[in-house]
């Protein structure tokens, strides 16, 4: 090993990593979430590249190719399920990571740039989720994308342009599939890799931030102790992913045929991480939802500058309460959304037995 390090001229970087350490305190466990998110991101890259070998991004072949991956290609179902479950695990981990940083107030100076790049990475992960959702071209994904790509139209001035750039046509068609595929496999990964590199490099440079009142019990050497702990978590993450992928293979709904339009299945809804947005649209007009969430996002991004107390190393209970309110709001809206979807599905079942739907397939 030592000879290999010398051969590759890695002695200095390895020594620098050995010199690094991570503070040890009561909340230090939360540091591992950043590394776990990075691990899930790597899983996405590997499984995504494998899926690319068979996936075909056209309305005629997309669903068929995913069906082939799932039914015929050896380990295809597992790889696709790992990709789908890991996407959810990644977003959940990034959310947890963000809130742990928020409550530890480790966004305070000089780590504001870490907070901002982290928010951008969260948005990029949500972008991956949105663009990947349509790719299997099943009925639910088709209608969720129709709604998702319609919402930007409510943005003043630029709305129509953004919607038309996303769709590539007036409706959701093959052009939309091609664009979302391009975003999913080329544009977003490039941007995400850039931001992830900056995020990791700055973390390495500044070290981990500690909560204001944390009682530092010492330091954990980054290499090998911290990395050893982190890799145990990665292995657990991988084992859980594989188990879930095998026990609960990701569903593939019926294909959507553009040439034979049909009405949406009952209770069309986006993935769980967009459910709070979806529910908000039921209470306020689309344009105001876009405006409110833009303001919330700008506020959330500017927290390191707005939280002056944290910046000066003082207590900032107001921001702790803002964080609690944010979690409560997201949880409430998400729960309400799932209740409403369940209600819509129940209503549709009742309606099917009482009112004839004359647009059923001919």
């Amino acid at each position, binding site marked *: 090993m030592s000879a290999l390090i010398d051969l590759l001229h890695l002695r200095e970087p390895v020594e620098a990593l050995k010199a690094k350490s991570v503070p040890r305190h009561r909340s230090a466990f939360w540091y591992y979430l950043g590394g776990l998110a990075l691990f899930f991101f790597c899983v996405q890259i590997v499984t995504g590249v494998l899926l690319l070998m068979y996936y075909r991004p056209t309305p005629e072949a997309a669903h068929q190719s995913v069906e082939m991956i799932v039914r015929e290609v050896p380990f295809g179902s597992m790889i696709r399920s790992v990709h789908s479950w890991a996407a959810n695990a990644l977003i959940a981990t990034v959310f947890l990571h963000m809130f742990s940083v928020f409550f530890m107030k480790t966004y305070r100076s000089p780590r504001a740039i870490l907070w901002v790049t982290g928010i951008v990475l969260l948005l990029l992960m949500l972008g991956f989720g949105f663009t990947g959702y349509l790719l299997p071209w099943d009925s639910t994904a088709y*209608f969720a994308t*129709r*709604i998702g*790509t*319609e*919402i930007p139209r409510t943005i003043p001035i630029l709305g129509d*342009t953004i919607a*038309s*750039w996303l769709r*590539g*046509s*007036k*409706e*959701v*068609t*093959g*052009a939309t599939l091609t664009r979302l595929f391009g975003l999913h496999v080329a544009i977003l990964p490039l941007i995400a890799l850039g931001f992830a590199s900056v995020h990791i490099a700055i973390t390495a440079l500044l070290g981990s931030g500690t909560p204001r009142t944390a009682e530092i019990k010492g330091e954990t050497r980054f290499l090998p102790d911290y990395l050893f702990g982190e890799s145990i978590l990665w292995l657990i993450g991988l084992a859980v992913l594989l188990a879930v992928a095998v026990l609960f293979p990701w569903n593939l709904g019926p294909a959507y045929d*553009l*040439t*034979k*339009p*049909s*009405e*949406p*299945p*009952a209770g*069309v809804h986006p993935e769980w991480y967009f459910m709070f947005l979806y529910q908000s*649209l*039921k209470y306020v007009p*689309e344009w105001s939802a876009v405006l409110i969430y833009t303001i919330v996002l700008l506020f959330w991004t500017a927290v390191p500058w707005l939280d002056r107390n944290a910046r000066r190393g003082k207590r900032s209970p107001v921001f702790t309460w803002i964080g609690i309110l944010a979690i409560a709001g997201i949880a409430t809206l998400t729960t309400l959304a799932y209740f409403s979807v369940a209600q*819509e599905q129940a209503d*549709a079942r009742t309606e099917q037995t009482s*009112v*004839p*739907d*004359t*647009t*059923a397939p*001919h």
Partner: protein
Amino acid sequence: MVAFAAPFVYAASKFLSYQGVLGGNKTATFSAEELTPDSPSKLVEIEGEPVIVVREADNSIRAFTATCTHLGCIVSFRPQLAIGHEVTPGFYCKCHGGKYDVNGINIPGTPPKAPLTELEVVDVADDLTISLLPKTASQ
């Protein structure tokens, strides 16, 4: 820097704004006999856009754009749709519960804020041809 980038940004934005549909049908053609009292409506695709064709109670055949004007889902025809206290034929969007009357007019109090567009139907000896040409008011 801006002067250098501007032509590229302009070209890229024009490139991305193209809205052509590859391989879409310019018209939908089928026999009026496909629309029966038991199955009085049919969804068809014209230039990538869903269109709903309906045989009404007086036997007239009408076509409307089927894209819900709320958030872009696809509407379906219901011979019995609860609109206020009445039950009449109309269009219904499953995604967010949008309703339109039989003339495609959005029902106040439901999410859509604009009507469906009625389209021209050419009926030659029960052979129907529908395009995305809006029906003119005089017809």
